[in-house]
């Protein structure tokens, strides 16, 4: 075991441990904080895989945006220190068994398949290549999905404004 493996195992333990704590803890705010640590560990894994721009976007969008949004909505919907209701034990056991069966099924497929990595060094994941490919209109370009995604963001913006603007007299 060299230093590379040790770093991978540390990051994997951080991601999986805080992810597992996020779905099993009884307090909602602690779940959000555990989710934050899991997302930070994922950004570290992207750094480790040398995808620096994806790691930066991960930190900005997930850690800086989505987690703060989740914490805001927790404060808007939750009384302080209130424990959450849980499902019945039979349903919890069934959920764990179902997730584990899916895990085992795909795991067997991954172990049996041998992936052969390609040797050649093609395009490096630099920001220039990402921008050229994302706005390219020729073969291999992603200009049309880029525009569709921008329309989706506009729709989400308008939708959240419409939801938030509804006055109490209209809702009741």
């Amino acid at each position, binding site marked *: 075991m060299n230093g590379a493996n040790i770093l991978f195992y540390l990051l994997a333990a951080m991601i999986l441990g805080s992810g597992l704590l996020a*779905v099993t803890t009884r307090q909602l705010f602690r779940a*959000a904080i555990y989710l934050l640590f899991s997302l930070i560990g994922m950004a570290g894994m992207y750094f480790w895989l040398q995808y620096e721009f994806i790691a930066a976007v991960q930190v900005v969008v997930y850690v800086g945006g989505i987690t703060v949004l989740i914490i805001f909505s927790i404060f808007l919907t939750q009384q302080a220190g209130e424990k959450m209701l849980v499902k019945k034990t039979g*349903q919890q056991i069934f959920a764990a068994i179902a997730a584990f069966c899916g895990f085992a099924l795909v*795991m067997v497929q991954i172990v049996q398949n041998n992936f052969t*990595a390609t040797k050649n060094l*093609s395009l490096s994941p630099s920001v220039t290549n990402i921008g050229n490919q994302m706005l390219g209109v020729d073969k291999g370009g992603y200009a049309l999905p880029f525009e569709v995604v921008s329309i989706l963001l506009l729709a989400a913006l308008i939708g*959240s404004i419409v939801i938030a603007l509804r006055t109490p007299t209209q809702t009741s």
Partner: protein
Amino acid sequence: MQKDGLEAIIMEICNPIIYHFLRSLKNNSQTITIFELQALFLRHFKKMPSQYYLFLSLALFCIGVMGVLMRRNAIIILMCIELMLNAVNLLLVTFSKMYNDPNAQLFVFFIMVVAAAEVSIGLAIIVMMYRKVHSIDVHILNRLKN
């Protein structure tokens, strides 16, 4: 070339980040090029088999599925969906690294945009629902059933 002596040992024993840090500390003219450094990273990536990254991604996805099936709180369910989307992102990045294909990382950005839009709209709907029924329990929100 001094690269065969002590630096080779450092290259083999320490991890590449420490090696890169040492090189940037020395900052001399005959520093190794970025392509050699990338080849070094690729060799270390090959030492860590890419199946392990797939195992990690799969385990994180199953944790998310378990959370969606197990919990009753709507915000926790949205958080588990975020975990699952992150697992898919890690899977795409791993395959992009394994096959040297830059197309996969663009899908990662699209997935991030869709996830951000989805979670903002979802949380807005949850907050509005809490104002009406004073609960975010998904077992109470079943009025469409009958």
